[in-house]
């Protein structure tokens, strides 16, 4: 793979190299701090705002020092040899990012899905929207564009990692983060090709944590075709969509808070639901400082209802009005379809026993 990322048939792949001329200058104004980063970007044109700024030496001093011994960068993009529209080629990273589009071409104004496929080196992990006791969620910052607006990340069901009394939520091996793009492309836009860039920042951990980033670009031709689109990416989207938690009205939840515990009651609203084994039910809270991530969760079926008792976080400062998150099980929540993760949100009432 050539150094600048121009691999065969590639679109412009921006592989930024950060060289720090002067890592930081700090001036103090009263108690506030102004930090100026002076960053020289070596071999490419797109100036990237680095979300993580100036960090530990092995990360920030430039990619040359990042080429540590255990280089493991998958040459094949996927097992199915699918060509992404963008492939990150910074082999110093522990995570490589491919940008995929679901459809081949912009045909009319509307929603077009893209996927950031993160391939994570063995043993390392990146984080969910609630990272848990430590870590940081992956962030995608889109460059402004005339007629394309990006929506929020749609997160696949997370995994749980437990180490030394610390519980975190995230992904290992591989994850595809799905993002809807609203493309308002009119006839008048049709004559020109277009480029959209996104800065992707993530924290990757395996005992130690490193912030990494890349700039992914999406190019469209004058006829609206996504450059380097591969028909095979559709199967990756199907796989990724299957891992998104189900949005359903077939289950309804509410919660009561008492004595540092939340009691959540999840009630079936239709006849199509099933009762998965309580041993493998777990609630991933979507926000930090709400549920104790480490404490055991207790679930039981009471008639048709699932009742869960969850320890409140010791950092809960006020009882939240509403909690949302993902409820997972090993068996399906439904009789006739395979759904093992679903989004739930519930209002919380404070309970005072009057017995």
């Amino acid at each position, binding site marked *: 793979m050539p150094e600048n990322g121009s691999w065969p048939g590639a679109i412009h792949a921006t592989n930024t190299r950060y060289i720090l001329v002067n890592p930081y200058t700090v001036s103090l104004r009263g108690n506030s701090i102004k*930090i100026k980063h002076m960053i020289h970007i070596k071999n490419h044109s797109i100036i990237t705002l680095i979300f993580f700024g100036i*960090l530990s030496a092995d990360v920030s001093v430039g990619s040359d020092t990042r080429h540590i011994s255990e280089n493991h960068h998958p040459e094949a993009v996927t097992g199915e040899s699918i060509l992404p529209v963008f492939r990150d080629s910074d082999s110093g990273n522990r995570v490589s990012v491919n940008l995929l589009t679901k459809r081949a071409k912009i045909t009319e104004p509307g929603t077009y899905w893209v996927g950031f496929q993160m391939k994570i080196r063995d043993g390392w992990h990146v984080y969910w929207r609630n990272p848990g006791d430590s870590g940081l969620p992956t962030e995608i910052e889109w460059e402004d564009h005339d007629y394309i607006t990006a929506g929020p990340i749609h997160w696949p069901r997370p995994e749980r990692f437990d180490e030394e009394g610390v519980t975190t939520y995230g992904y290992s091996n591989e994850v595809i983060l799905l993002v809807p793009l609203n493309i308002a492309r009119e006839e008048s836009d049709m004559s020109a090709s277009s480029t959209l860039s996104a800065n992707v920042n993530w924290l990757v951990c395996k005992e*130690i944590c490193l912030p990494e980033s890349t700039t992914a670009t999406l190019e469209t031709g004058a006829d609206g075709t996504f450059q380097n689109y591969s028909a095979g990416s559709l199967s990756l989207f199907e796989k990724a969509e299957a891992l998104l938690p189900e949005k359903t009205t077939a289950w309804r939840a509410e919660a009561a808070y008492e004595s540092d515990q939340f009691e959540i009651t999840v009630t079936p609203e239709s006849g199509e639901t099933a009762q998965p084994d309580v041993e493998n039910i777990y609630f991933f809270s979507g926000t*930090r400082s709400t549920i104790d991530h480490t404490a055991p969760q207790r679930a039981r079926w009471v008639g048709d209802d699932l009742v869960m008792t969850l320890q409140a976080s010791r950092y809960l400062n006020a009882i939240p009005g509403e909690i949302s998150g993902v409820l997972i099980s090993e068996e399906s929540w439904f009789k006739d379809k395979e759904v093992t993760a679903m989004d739930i949100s519930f209002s919380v009432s404070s309970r005072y026993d009057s017995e």
Partner: protein
Amino acid sequence: MKYTAKLVLFPVLILAYYGSSVEQNNPRPEIGKKAPDFTLQDASGNTHTLSDYEDTFVVLEWLNHDCPFVAKHYNSGNMQMLQEQYADKGVVWFSIISSAPGKQGYLKPENARKITREKRAKPHAVLLDPGGEVGQAYRARVTPHMYVINPEGMISYMGAIDDKPTANTDDIEGARNFVSEALDNLLDGRGVEVTTYQPYGCTVKY
């Protein structure tokens, strides 16, 4: 009836929560309770005992210079500024390294002295806790994990340094710094508004 059931359940959860034997032998640190006493050597070989510092405010900062979240506060100069600012007000600031030998962030005394010089850090002392006993006693989970102890030796604040759980130096400006807020209030004879906040950072490498 539900109420009784919970009373039984609660201690079970607590016991399950405390995994290691070190944790079972020590009560978990609590706001308004006595801070666990300790004696540790600093990077220059001097011995410090917490209870010798009664009558002053003490800050404990869990430190690992290889952690991006710690680097956020040192590369920006934020941590050094806090250390210096409160030293001027008589606050004793200990940076504690609980990384085990061979783990990330562990430093031999001479290396701890060197990096403290290089970072222009201004703690009262950098304490070395390679066995992790003090970190475990405080349930220090991440770096930076912060504790403020009042002159009576009671814990007044514990948790995050601020309310922006990121590794980005740009997020320091505008963040609500709970350590300086607690110290300012206490030094003015007022109470602490936020006494705990979920800490963020890299896990402590015990």
